[in-house]
């Protein structure tokens, strides 16, 4: 039997398991929908000043910057209709954003004020006589030497490696059933927890995360049956993931997944208690409809989590307070 693993404090719902339990603030970040609207809320990051940055595909304000209490600080951006992936990287003491646009098929690097520094368009040289490369980038990750890893999650299913100046170096992956291939390589991150940087890629339709070397050689797979995951977010010794669908991929069945240092699922806020039979995780499903379609998690310096959602009725992000 599965267990939901919920508790209540007074009337307040507590979600999550083990050391990772949270109260849910439902009105965090709510703004005037007429002046500062959102459509899909895709991704969030925290900058060096502690501010929380949201990326939405609403072109009235693609980027919304909050403080941790959910108060609006500023907005910018009106030319990214497919705003999808948001990565922050501190380079020489200054924060920069890397935004992927799935409609305009590019990756753009900007300052925190929205000034565009560099744009990477559809990679050339991969078209064949009967097949034009489909480039629909969903995510980026940047290693210390400045190399940019672009996950073409809705397009060719390759991970493209560019140098810091936007010159294409190589690619790996591609569509297929093999260990080093993907169906929807939706997210990418750099995992440096072992001391050696490795590339961690989401294989969403396979309910897996896959490790590669920085040069793109396949290493290993983490199985998360029933979890249709977005990008991995590595915070301290844990991996956090928005799980956009679960179980049999029914609508509005999302939850949050939290892996420990050994990449074992230890908490699933909104989902059922993770249960292992030996080393194999039992198929995960949602327990309570706290979330519809969570698309990313941002873990702040207080260990609280912000959750933007895709296709959730144009709602602002939720905040989970760790208890």
């Amino acid at each position: 039997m599965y267990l939901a693993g919920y508790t209540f404090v007074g009337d307040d719902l507590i979600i999550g398991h083990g050391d990772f339990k949270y109260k849910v603030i439902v009105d965090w970040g709510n703004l005037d929908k007429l002046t500062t609207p959102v459509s899909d809320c895709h991704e969030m990051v925290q900058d060096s000043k502690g501010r929380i940055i949201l990326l939405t595909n609403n072109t009235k304000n693609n980027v919304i910057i909050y403080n941790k209490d959910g108060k609006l600080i500023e907005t910018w951006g009106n030319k990214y209709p497919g705003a999808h992936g948001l990565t922050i990287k501190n380079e020489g003491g200054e924060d920069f954003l890397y935004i992927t646009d799935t409609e305009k098929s590019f990756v753009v690097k900007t300052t925190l004020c929205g000034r565009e520094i560099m744009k990477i368009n559809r990679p050339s040289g991969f078209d064949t006589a009967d097949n034009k490369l489909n480039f629909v980038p969903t995510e980026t990750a940047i290693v210390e030497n400045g190399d940019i890893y672009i996950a073409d999650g809705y397009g060719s299913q390759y991970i493209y490696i560019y140098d810091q100046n936007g010159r294409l170096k190589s690619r790996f992956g591609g569509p297929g059933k093999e260990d080093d291939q993907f169906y929807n390589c939706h997210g990418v991150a750099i995992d440096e927890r072992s001391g050696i940087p490795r590339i961690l890629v989401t294989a969403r339709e396979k309910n897996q995360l896959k490790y590669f070397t920085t040069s793109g050689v396949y290493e290993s797979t983490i199985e998360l049956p029933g979890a249709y995951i977005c990008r991995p977010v590595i915070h301290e010794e844990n991996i956090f993931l928005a799980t956009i669908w679960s179980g049999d991929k029914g609508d509005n069945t999302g939850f949050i997944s939290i892996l420990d240092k050994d990449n074992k699922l230890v908490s699933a806020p909104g989902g059922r208690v993770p249960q292992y039979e030996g080393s194999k995780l039992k198929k995960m499903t949602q327990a309570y409809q706290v979330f519809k379609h969570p698309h990313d998690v941002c873990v702040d310096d207080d260990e609280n989590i912000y959750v933007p959602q895709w296709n959730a009725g144009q709602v602002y992000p939720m905040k989970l307070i760790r208890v």
Partner: protein
Amino acid sequence: MRYLIVIIILASWGCNKKTQKSIYLQKSNTTLSTPSISVDEAFFDIRTLIRVDNVDPKIDIRHTIDETEPTQNSPLAKNHIIVSETGIHKFKAFQKGVKYSNTVTVEAIEARKVNWIGLVSNDPNQNYNSGIGVLTDHKKGDWNFRSDEWYGYQDSIVKFSFTLEEGEVINGAIVSSMIDQNSWIFSPVNVSLNYHFEDGTKENHELSISDCMVQSEKQMNYLKITTPPRYPNRIDVIVYNMLSIPDWHPGKGLKPWLFVDEILIL
């Protein structure tokens, strides 16, 4: 007088200043997730088993078999239910003080397993081609259209031909497909069932589907043609895909996807 005005302004500001208090999600506003229900064989020839994975002892899962919505007074669903007739089974989870779940609907269809040799007029897309055996293996595909149970096409017309053993009585057929419009997967617009008899004669039966409306929820789609009993030696099941995605959809004008996981004989 000047101090008085300042005091009044400060007092007024203090009264108007709202205390920022977060609103936490509470028990009474929490909705149970849909119960986890699985069926061993959605297409069965003698009997099948529906499995109910209960979330928690405090949660009741209620069940109906008459197509009505389950209520708190409907029968409790046991861990498993033995099914020996075609039917629609609905399940819903209830817990005191918490909002009940959405309904899970499971359809179990009685259909004979027939020994036949199949041919397909055109190959499916290379990414969704698990071999023609999946169309007659009596295994229902799940919601993951990339799984090994689905045949996926963007072609306008697909013909599935089956040669039957002598003496097989046929009462019709069911085409099992999927609708997932977020993934650009639509219902066929027409299904044609052609019987070919040993003497060279033919008989045609049609099913038209006027179903390109917006379907926000994904749906398993059973397209059934019932006929008088016949003894053909070959049948053709011709499935007509929508020519292009309708204007209301983000993919308007492009070719829609058609996914089929089973052809069933009645």
